[in-house]
């Protein structure tokens, strides 16, 4: 998956679809080299680690 990085190609941040009529026949390598598109991330962002916050200071026997 590619993402548009330049307004000259379309809306920045939109997905670049080589099958779209507007982009048909495009030389992908040249667009990457020129910085007009970039590789989009295909992985989901990882969840943050669960941490316990100790707010009970009066009755806490562990501390």
């Amino acid at each position: 998956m590619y993402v548009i990085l330049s307004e000259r190609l379309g809306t920045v941040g939109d997905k670049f679809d080589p099958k779209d009529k507007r982009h048909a026949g495009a030389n992908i390598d040249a667009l990457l080299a020129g910085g007009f598109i970039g590789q989009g991330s295909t992985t989901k962002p990882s969840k943050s680690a669960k941490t316990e916050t100790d707010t009970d200071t009066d009755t806490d026997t562990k501390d």
Partner: protein
Amino acid sequence: MATSTLLSNPHVLINAVNMSDQCTAANFSINYAQLTATSFGDVDSKYVKGTGDHSLTLSFYGSFAASETWASLNALVGTTFTVIVSPEAPATPGTYSATNPGMTLTGTFLAALPVNFSLSELTTMDIVCSGGVYSLDVS
């Protein structure tokens, strides 16, 4: 007699990248080989259409900034790509019409990227896109 002034303001997409604001001239040449078909008994020359050999000459201001002329053209040298020239910018990107056709060369080749540096003049880049399949997009 001309009754109005028409300003030429074409739209240039080179490898899907809109380079109209850097382009100053576009010369689209649709050519076919002229094959002789004259035979004995003919008193006039006759011809038939042969192989197409189309080209597009484009002149650009030579900006080296990001996403400008150099970034767009440098990586295309020695490769094939698609270029579209229309009389004016389509109202909807990628949608052309009979009165604003997209003159298209698919698989055209860029052999060289000459850069012109001159004293007291803006840098320019003049390219020739050679060959490719010509089509007229009206939809």
